[in-house]
């Protein structure tokens, strides 16, 4: 099922559990109930404000359901994700298989992810009316493990083609960068949940090797989906909405529900992330050879809105 993304972005909020619901209250002289969401319907909870308080009961209820609880800093960057320790009944078996995976396998899988990312980036450029040939040309050149680091070369061309030569992708900057941060935060939470649910360990990555990053596998697997966020950010930017606001957030969260093309037909991004994580676990277990990646091409609804303009 496709869940709901819940974000708490205002100070003075208190969150707790009553029966099967998460209840949000406003803290003040008098506690006022703002709303409640069934726990089973939540796909991710994003805590994006300073003065929040939550009960331990709530955190336990989220962890039991494998719902990621994302903590954000002032610039909307995620600084931590709380996830459950037992997400899948086969978890121990799958962890073992994941750790035993050989170098050739992880290198081959990383090359597949880079190819998929470059293809999606090319689709995004095409939709934005920019030349996509520089990226399409790189796809065929990706070798096992991406030793030429075509991913970075692609990114360099990509950002200037999408947002112009002056644009610099920097997490600490505001404007377009801050909306990108926000979109990636939501995407990262979704992929983290998929990874845990597939019984994989988020820290044991394929390519990302920063020793301070606890979510290396999540960062590996989210690569092919980033361009979907990028295109939505581009769309917002072009319509003069270059800052993080309730409206832009709502728009970006919707990108998780856009349909992408897969071998099994059109499926929302959120479901694609789950399929990818599950297929990775199966590759590790030797049950299949290749990853279940989205096909090149745009999310359908988005392509349709662009056509109409």
């Amino acid at each position, binding site marked *: *099922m496709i869940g*709901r993304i819940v974000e708490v972005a205002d100070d003075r909020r208190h969150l707790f559990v009553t029966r099967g619901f998460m209840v949000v209250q406003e803290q003040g002289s008098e506690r006022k109930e703002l709303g409640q969401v069934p*726990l089973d*319907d939540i796909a991710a909870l994003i805590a994006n404000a300073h003065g929040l308080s939550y009960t331990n009961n709530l955190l336990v209820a989220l962890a039991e359901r494998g719902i990621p609880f994302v903590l954000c800093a002032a610039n909307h960057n995620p600084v931590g994700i709380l996830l459950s320790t037992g997400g899948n009944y086969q978890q121990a078996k799958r962890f073992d298989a994941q750790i035993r995976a050989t170098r050739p396998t992880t290198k081959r899988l990383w090359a597949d992810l880079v190819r998929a990312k470059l293809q999606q980036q090319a689709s995004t450029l095409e939709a934005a009316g920019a030349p996509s040939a520089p990226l399409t040309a790189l796809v065929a050149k990706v070798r096992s493990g991406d030793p030429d680091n075509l991913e970075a070369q692609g990114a360099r061309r990509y950002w200037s083609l999408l947002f112009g030569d002056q644009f610099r992708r920097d997490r600490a900057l505001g404007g377009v960068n801050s909306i990108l941060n926000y979109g990636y935060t939501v995407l990262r939470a979704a992929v983290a949940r998929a990874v845990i649910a597939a019984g994989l360990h988020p820290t044991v990555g394929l390519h990302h090797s920063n020793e301070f990053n606890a979510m290396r596998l999540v960062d590996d697997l989210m690569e092919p989906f980033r361009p979907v966020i990028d295109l939505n950010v581009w769309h917002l930017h072009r319509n003069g909405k270059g800052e993080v606001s309730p409206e832009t957030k709502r728009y970006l969260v919707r990108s998780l529900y856009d349909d992408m093309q897969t071998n099994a037909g059109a499926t929302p991004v959120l479901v694609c992330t789950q399929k990818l994580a599950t297929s990775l676990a199966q590759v590790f277990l030797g049950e299949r050879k290749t990853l279940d990646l989205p096909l090149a091409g745009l999310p359908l609804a988005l392509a349709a809105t662009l056509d109409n303009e």
Partner: protein
Amino acid sequence: MWVMVMFDLPVVGKAERKAAAEFRNTLLDLGFEMAQFSVYMRFCSSHMQVDTYGKRVESVLPEGGRVNIIQFTDKQYERIITFRGRAKQAANKTPDQFDLF
């Protein structure tokens, strides 16, 4: 899609009242919201989910009661006319994929 559970349960004996309270609490645990004292509603995103919740409710039915499970569409839900006292309430809204508090 919406699912509505309506029930009349016997509450004469102590054991019956306990069973009725348990049934009500289970509905709340499943994410059904109270619309009226014996009417509970839940939003579902697909037919498959409607079936799942229908089966879950079935598995916790108390003895000797009468329970109806009704399904209706988002449009029909939005067309519900609600009065509280004499005042007419604003139309219901189906939840969004993104909740901002």
